[in-house]
């Protein structure tokens, strides 16, 4: 039960952080969904870092499964891709698609290296 509490608490904070950053992103007119991009890449870096630190189980559930999981989002990424294609923003869609995947992998690798080092 305490495990669920950890995940729920972390996810609540992560989701609120994502919501606030997304609303900040909406203040600016952009072709690319930069807010979601920044959230997913920074979250990938942090989860890599935490994975490298080998946290105790409950702390891992709070920060990795909870916070990082709730902060980053896969569904918004895909829905934004669908809308970019609907609006015929092919270059933007491809940039966003590959940019997120490649940057996410680089970010999680860098985080993991740093976490292992610390």
């Amino acid at each position, binding site marked *: 039960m305490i*495990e*669920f509490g950890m*995940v*729920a*608490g*972390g*996810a*609540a*904070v*992560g*989701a*609120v952080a*994502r*919501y*606030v950053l*997304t*609303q*900040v992103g*909406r*203040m*600016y*007119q952009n072709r690319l969904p930069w807010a979601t991009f920044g*959230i*997913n890449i920074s*979250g*990938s870096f*942090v*989860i*890599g870092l935490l*994975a490298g630190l080998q946290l105790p189980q409950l702390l891992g*559930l709070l920060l*990795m*499964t*909870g916070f*990082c*999981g*709730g*902060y*980053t*989002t*896969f*569904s*918004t*990424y*895909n*829905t934004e*891709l*669908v*809308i970019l*294609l*609907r609006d015929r923003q092919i270059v933007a869609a491809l940039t966003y*698609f590959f940019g*997120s*995947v490649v940057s*996410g*992998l680089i*970010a*999680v*690798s860098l985080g*993991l290296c740093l976490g292992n080092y610390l």
Partner: protein
Amino acid sequence: MRYRQFKAPLASLLAVAGFGALGGSLRYAIGLLINGPAATLVVNLVGSFCLALITYWLGPMSDLPDWAITGLGTGLIGAFTTFSTFSLDSLHLLTRSMWLGLAYMMVSLAGGFLLAGLGYLTAQHMKGGHHYD
């Protein structure tokens, strides 16, 4: 460059927190039922379909207040799905076997995109419109 005011009403913030806690817990529960990266895959595919449906059907068609739609979409489904675990699982699988990692990424990405597209088209269909383009 700035063209819109910052808007994050308290009701929406609370809904995102509450539904976000629920979405994260559901993801964790599925992780207990299904072993390994397959759990994240299932969660991300189901969530991609649901978010498109909530955003493009439930949002415009229901009488639910804005905070409830934000809670369900941004909170519940946003926190249910995860990009960070997807990146971490992809890296782990890639280092174990390049082909396994690439297959996992392909299925997640293609599946997530297709299901979000299907959710969007389903939403347009249920709205009775014919905006299939």
